[in-house]
């Protein structure tokens, strides 16, 4: 007994980014949804003047530029970028709605319910990304 008292148990309480990226550290679903909310938000922020507004500008200015925009978007690389941004928007949207429901006490925030709603956020946004992705890559 005296051994265990004299020898402090090791503690690893600080998460570094590497641990998060390689997923060696177990995060509960709510934490996964939360960090994805942050990552997707940062992604959307960066994409605003680089991708979103240029595409919007081309799509809306004239019939000719609209055709040019469609040509850009038909490139597979552009489709992949758009798919990532679509996921980012959908995840940010769904996770944001969850936060609003939690803030207004419309959603329950006990441990079990919170994990379940976070799982729903991740699942629904991935499922919607699949639907928009199939449309984007011309499934119909």
């Amino acid at each position, binding site marked *: 007994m005296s051994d265990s008292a004299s020898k402090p148990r090791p503690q690893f309480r600080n998460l570094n980014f590497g641990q998060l990226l390689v997923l060696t550290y177990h995060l509960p679903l709510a934490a996964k949804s939360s960090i994805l909310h*942050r990552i997707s938000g940062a992604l959307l922020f960066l994409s605003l*003047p680089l991708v979103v*507004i240029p595409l919007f500008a081309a799509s809306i200015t004239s019939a000719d530029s609209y055709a040019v925009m469609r040509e850009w978007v038909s490139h597979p690389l552009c489709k992949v970028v758009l798919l990532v941004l679509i996921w980012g928007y959908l995840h940010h949207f769904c996770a944001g709605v969850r936060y609003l429901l939690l803030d207004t006490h419309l959603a329950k925030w006990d441990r079990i319910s919170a994990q379940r709603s976070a799982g729903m956020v991740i699942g629904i946004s991935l499922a919607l990304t699949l639907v928009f992705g199939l449309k984007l890559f011309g499934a119909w």
Partner: protein
Amino acid sequence: MATQQRLGTKRLVVGAHYGTLDFVVQRCTAVVMAIYTLILFFGFLFSSEMDFEAWQHLFTFHLGVLPVGQLLATLAFFSVAWHAWIGVRDIWMDYVTSAGLRLLLQVLTVLWLVGSIVYFAKVLWSL
């Protein structure tokens, strides 16, 4: 002098409430963007054929003399920029501890967002 008030029975709230303002703004702008997303989504769904004309009409339609399409898009974009400012500033505050570097990143964030607003406004209002 900051007004003081009690929250509940114990907690005395002091200060200028900048944090509270940001908290509320973050959520109000989120609601504005969510509503605008739904407006665009249903506009997209219920237009019989989505071609250039119909797409442009979503952002340029008028009610009487009011350019409602452009006004809604502009308000939504201001919400995007204000929301993004609070969110990105939170990221810098969480991860960047050096005051000088944080200030630099915050200034760059503001420039990035103001540039985006001007870019978007120029595209939208030159239609």
